[in-house]
């Protein structure tokens, strides 16, 4: 039980409660210190089951570690540090509390050794992350937070049904590698996939995350979708259906991202797109592919947080979030622009960035596994991402038509967090072999070969050429609009259905209540009739009648006495 004291989630959850009470420097020390203590715990943790608790006929394993869990935990702790640094002056204490609790629960998921523990932390993550959205405090955030929570609670129900079925069929709660070959396992897979932003529920990501505060979205971008990648990598490597789902996500993210006018929402679509690469890799399932998926998750947490920090900084200093309102911000925000560009190059897998050395393994795995058609689509996806986040985002926010806005750079702590992550993006790209040593499988692979670098530059820059030619000859008309997505079904039709149901069930309810109250009134009236003040059983007798009957009884008594005595 003493091992629980060294669970990496513990420092962060204790810190979350402390920051509710602390202010000033003490709060900053806790915000920055607890992720570092957690990181130390992660690297002190030995492999194997460190805590086992008997529960009914099973054994819960709330603390179990191996290379895969340590890798995810490491990037979660790094993210917690940078996220807390970025949010150091966040005045909404509830957001910081919820975000840190959320991080602790996601560490709970990656160190969970059985399905029940996974489920418990999974659901707690959903509640904590919803609170991060709610704590933005706007009416749109409340509505988006409710939609987010509904979708995730639905996913939780599906996951719980799957786990219950799995236990009923196999009698085991072990969380090990499986295939979706039975209904319960298919339900578990569906529950996990919902958190990746897989179709048809992809829209929850761009719908909810951008409504969080400037710092809230940074936290949200890192944990829910990546714990989902973690559980898929552990639970369903080689499930081929994931290849199709992942590829769909890649192109969904690109097309919707290119259509989008809200910069933060566009990054939401881009999360789905990137997680699509990871899901595809898990579907391929070879050692190289799993390495690719988890390396990509690691790199993605960093560069996506960097991009969201940069656009969050722009949102923080301008209060605006649409491309139609931006333009020319590089003049007064050069550092933010440079950090955003580094994030954009990383996500596009530019050579010598973290994205390049991570994604390269997935393409290599597709080639080696003879999934050539997947290779082509992954290459197309890479080119598409560059158009989206590599060019469109940067061009319309920092360059393009001058909006006349001259906002200052964000405060020092936000700039420091961005520079830290920008350095990591380039650092990982420059020394990939050190990064690869963290991965679950030891493989001999070198991404920085001349042929790979040249062809990668070609695919990206020629794709960029298509964008700039289009821009030059046709222009890129930005309009204040949204593009309908699957969420239309539940936001419009679902709403109509709920209203119709409420109205119809309302009249049915009224008539049932009327019938019941009629029956109840009749019963009460009946009782009242017999037992009420005027009822036959409760009637008061006149005194004269009492005297009369007493005399009669006495007379009978005298008569009996006279006759028989």
């Amino acid at each position: 039980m003493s091992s629980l004291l060294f669970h990496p989630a513990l420092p962060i959850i204790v810190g979350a409660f402390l920051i509710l009470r602390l202010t000033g420097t003490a709060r900053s020390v806790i915000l920055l210190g607890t992720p570092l203590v957690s990181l130390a715990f992660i690297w002190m943790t030995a492999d194997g089951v460190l805590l086992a608790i008997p529960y009914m006929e099973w054994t819960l394993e709330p603390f179990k570690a191996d290379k895969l869990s340590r890798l995810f935990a490491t990037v979660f702790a790094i993210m917690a540090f940078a996220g807390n640094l970025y949010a150091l002056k966040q005045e909404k204490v509830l957001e910081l509390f919820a975000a840190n609790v959320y991080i602790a629960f996601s560490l709970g998921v990656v160190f969970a050794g059985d399905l029940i523990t996974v489920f418990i932390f999974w659901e707690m993550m959903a509640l904590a992350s919803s609170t991060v959205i709610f704590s933005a405090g706007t009416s749109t955030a409340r509505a988006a937070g409710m939609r987010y929570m509904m979708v995730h609670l639905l996913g939780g129900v599906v996951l719980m049904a799957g786990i219950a079925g799995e236990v009923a069929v196999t009698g085991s709660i072990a969380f090990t590698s499986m295939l979706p070959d039975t209904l319960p396992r298919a339900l578990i897979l569906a529950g996990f996939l919902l958190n990746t932003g897989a179709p048809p529920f992809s829209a929850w990501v761009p719908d909810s995350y951008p409504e969080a505060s400037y710092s809230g979205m940074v936290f949200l971008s890192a944990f829910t979708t990546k714990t989902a990648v973690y559980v898929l990598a552990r639970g369903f490597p080689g499930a081929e259906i994931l290849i199709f789902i992942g590829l769909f996500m890649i192109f969904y993210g690109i097309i919707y991202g290119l259509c989008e006018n809200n910069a933060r929402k566009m990054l939401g679509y881009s999360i789905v797109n990137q997680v699509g690469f990871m899901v595809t890799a898990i579907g391929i399932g070879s050692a190289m592919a799993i390495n690719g998926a988890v390396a990509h998750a690691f790199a993605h947490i960093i560069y996506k947080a960097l991009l969201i920090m940069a656009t969050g900084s722009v949102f923080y200093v301008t209060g605006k979030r649409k491309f139609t309102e931006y333009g020319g911000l590089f003049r007064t925000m050069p550092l933010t622009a440079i950090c955003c560009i580094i994030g954009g190059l990383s996500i596009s897998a530019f050579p010598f960035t973290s994205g390049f050395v991570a994604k390269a393994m997935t393409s290599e795995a597709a080639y080696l596994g003879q999934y050539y058609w997947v290779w082509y689509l992954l290459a197309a996806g890479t080119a598409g991402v560059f158009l989206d986040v590599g060019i469109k985002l940067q061009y319309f926010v920092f360059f393009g038509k001058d909006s006349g806005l001259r906002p200052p750079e964000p405060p020092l702590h936000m700039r420091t967090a961005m520079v830290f992550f920008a350095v990591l993006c380039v650092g990982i790209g420059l020394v990939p072999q050190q990064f690869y040593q963290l991965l679950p499988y030891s493989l001999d692979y070198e991404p920085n070969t001349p042929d790979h670098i040249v062809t990668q530059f070609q695919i990206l820059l020629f794709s960029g050429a298509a964008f700039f030619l289009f821009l030059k000859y046709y222009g890129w008309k930005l309009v204040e609009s949204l593009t309908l997505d699957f969420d239309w079904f539940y936001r419009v039709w679902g709403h109509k259905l709920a209203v119709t149901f409420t109205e119809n069930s309302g009249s049915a309810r009224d008539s049932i209540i009327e019938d019941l109250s009629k029956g109840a009134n009749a019963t009460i009236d009946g009782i009242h009739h017999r037992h009420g003040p005027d009822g036959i059983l409760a009637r008061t007798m006149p005194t004269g009648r009492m005297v009369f009957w007493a005399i009669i009884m006495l007379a009978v008594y005298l008569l009996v006495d006279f006759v028989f005595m």
Partner: protein
Amino acid sequence: MSDQSNSHWLDDPGTPKRLWTIFIVVLVLLLIAELFVTHHHKGFMFNYGFSAWFGFLVGGVSILLSKGWKKILKRKDTYYDE
């Protein structure tokens, strides 16, 4: 915050033309560079120039697809507020 006086070398009218020239030179250099590298794998995707034309094609198709998709499903951004 709305001071438009800051001028920058990127605002120079000649800059777009210079950037285009540099960009085209880089693209040509990449095509030349591929002549001097050896591909580690075999297949259609590793033929000379494949990445260049494939990247350009994907870029164009993605833009057209997104424009078409938007044409069909575009709504006012206050659509859900009404």
